[in-house]
């Protein structure tokens, strides 16, 4: 009885821990986007447009995948639940 309760508690804690990490990742994601989309500012002249396109769309895709992954991990209703822990 006692052990099952304890493990449940640990499980809940872990979930909350996970949720917090996901939220942190969510917060970092746009910063990452800004940095990666800003990279072309450092390019010297003469990069081929096709290469630039491939770079942009790759980053774009990566961001989207990250966002999908995080949204899935956060799960439905997680927004509500995590609100108390946020801020």
């Amino acid at each position, binding site marked *: 009885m006692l052990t099952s309760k304890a493990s449940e508690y640990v499980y809940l804690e872990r979930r909350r821990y996970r949720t917090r990490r996901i939220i942190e990742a969510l917060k970092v994601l746009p910063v990452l986007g800004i940095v990666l989309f800003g990279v072309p500012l450092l390019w010297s*002249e003469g*990069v081929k447009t096709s290469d630039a396109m491939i770079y942009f769309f790759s980053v774009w895709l990566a961001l989207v995948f990250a966002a999908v992954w995080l949204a899935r991990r956060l799960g439905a209703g997680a927004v509500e639940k995590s609100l108390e822990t946020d*801020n």
Partner: protein
Amino acid sequence: MTPLNLLILVCLSYVVLLFLVAFAAERAALRGRGAWMSQPLVYTLSLSVYCTAWTFYGAVGNAARSGLEYLTIYLGPTIVMVGWWWVLRKLVRIGRSQRITSVADLISSRFGKSNLLAVCVTLLAVIGTTPYIALQLQSVTLSFAAFAEAGGLDAPVADSNATAIWVASGLTLFTIVFGTRNLDVNERHYGVVMAIAVEAVVKLCALLAVGIFVVWGVSGGVSETLQRIDASTIGTAEIHGGRWAALTFLSGAAFLCLPRMFQVLVVENEDESHLQTASWAFPVYVMLISLFVIPIAVVGLQTLPEGSNPDLFVLTVPLSQGRDGLAILSFLGGFSSATSMVIVAAIALSTMVSNHIVMPIWVRMTGGGASMSGDVRNVVLLARRLAIAGVVFLGYLYFSLSGGGAALTSIGLVSFAGVVQVLPAMLGGIFWRGATRMGALSGLLIGFLIWLFTLFLPSFAGGVFLPETVVQFGLFGLDWLRPQALFGFEGLDPLVHAVLLSMSINTLVFVLVSLITLPSPLEQLQGAQFVNVYQHSTQQKSWSGGVAQSEDLMVMAQRILGASEAQALFQSAATRQGVSGYLPEPSEEFLAELEREMAGSVGAATAHAMVGQIIGGTPVSVHDLMAVADETAQMKVYSSELEIKSQELARTALQLRNANTKLTQLSVQKDAFLSQISHELRTPMSSIRAFSEILRGVEVLSPQEQVRYASIIQEETIRLTRLLDDLLDLSVLENGQVSLNLSTGSLSDLMDHSVAMARVGRDAAAMQIHRNSADERIWLYTDLDRLNQVFLNLIVNAHKYCDAAEPKLQIIVRQSAQQLTIDFIDNGTGISYENQNLIFEKFSRIGGHKSGGAGLGLAISREILQRLQGDVIYLPGQNGAAFRIRLPESVIGGAARADMSSTD
């Protein structure tokens, strides 16, 4: 059938389809079968109103001119969406909890429901959006013209005004029909949203179809396309840092601030969790939208004759390849982009105009409140409808006055730059409690003016509003007032220049003014509600005091919310309050709820004003402010108060426990004491009574017996008297009531006196007393009588209790730096270890009653010495009973003075 006629037919069918879709959606929603429409996907697609005709056609044009720069328009929103946790989540939450109806309402509501601010934002939005609507109309007319050209007809070009009128009218009709069906903006426009979602699919499909055709149909594959790109005039990626950063920022900011975006993002949001899906789905959408832009542009540049309008490549490339079907699809895509933008923008603007401009004026004019007549709903709806028509008409007017043409193409970014002036107030409002109304207002106005001067007015070529001389030489001929080099910022791209200056000065002024001005109570209240929206999503306190007439409120609410809705609202509130019938008490919560409900119809400021007119009095008292202004801090204070209170409670409990223990102890002590007193009094009285009865008795007693018994009576009477004296003495000492009679005297004199007194009535030879007179040559400044009492007690005790054959008493005086000790040591058996502590207690007598004392002597001595800052202890291990008196050094202090006075 000519392509143009076909086009018109398709176009009309498409419009009919849209009407049907919207109508079906409204019906489904009305019948409660709209669940499938509140899917995250629909929400995501509705966000595509961001992609207007300007982006649909213009992106390719932009790419044809400046290569990859068009991407920035999509990168900004992508970053905002991906970073939804930061801003969008909060905006949506605030929008839902505060029933926000528009950007203007958000800003106004946040800054104390200020209508002035709302009017400013509304005007800014109208000014910023009108050219944009014109741009949509232009794109539709241009695309029509392109078809007409391809069909070999010239007439429609001249007739572009007619096209624009038709389009504008159709859009107005659609928007009025589906945009003002219901009043409460939070009830959402299912029809409109559905139609927009359909249009989003159409424009995506159109662009993808053209793109696929261009890549595989024209170029012959991906790698060939890429080669073609690199071989084209935009084959080298030239990225201008300043423009790149400014445009990305601008598009991201506009994504949040554009009225139509706020409408679909926040107002039409059904469920916060939809954001979670949109956070990746919308970036996917814009990524797909922008995927084929470069290939289309490159193919357009290479295959179409020199001088072709690159803004129409999406349309003209399929047309030139003889793909009329594809071209029509493409046209529908552009048409969709244009119409969806106009519809949503018109709804958003009309809400603002009616809520923040028309309604306040109307309320002021009619007096509002309960005295107003007629159904306010009709007034509001009429205002909205007129506003929609007005907004679209303004767009048309702008279009026709500016004469269309290339001047409009740049207006997209100009419009963005204008609308984003709201950003500092918006972000500051939701993240910074210190932001004030004055700050927001000043920032907004400054930003707006700078934008107007540096970007908007110069954007009209040919000096329509701003003479060429001003652009070249500055306002009033002042060099530093040149619109495109304001304050000497030269060499910047005009757009970057305007965005940088307007945004930074806007923000700076906003922050500075906020810092130096004080927010009103309501502002502070709303600030707390907005910034800490997650902590208290639903509570909203606003009204207090004042006697509200529930009936008046009901009358007003019915007119604004509709009779049945208002009655339901009032009844549920009454039920919650435990009141039967329809009229609840005008409690603070109910008024706040009512105001919120009405805010959904007429905006926060108007609702506030209306309720205020009925309630009367100041809406928020300083007391309220004190209570709610800093809710977070208050919560913290509250919890720490609770903590302190619980600590206090624990402390009090402990104190109570201690007090109780002490009381119990005292009670036990008192019982013991009373029992002792009783014993001490009754014992001598027993003897007295017994012997007095004997003496009074019948038998004849011998004279010796008579004398003896009488003397016993006398002896016991003296004992009783002494006991009472001691008790009184002790009581006085213990209560601290004793006043010390301080005087100076020599220790040896005092000791002489004590010894002499102790020997009264005793055989002087019975006990030897050893003293060292040299040590006793000390001057004391203390209560000498009390000290004598102590000495006497100790010496008498020695006399009484020393059981040695030859009793001796040693009195040893020692003086150290800190204290004076006087030891009284006899040569008797002393006091056993366990009794050493007891002897100082009251009534403790070791070895029976034969001494005749009351057992209070040592207790009294100890009390006396405590009063004299000293003490008396039993000194073990001295081969006899030994007591040590300790007196503080201060007592000896008198010696010096006494010595000096004597030497003088």
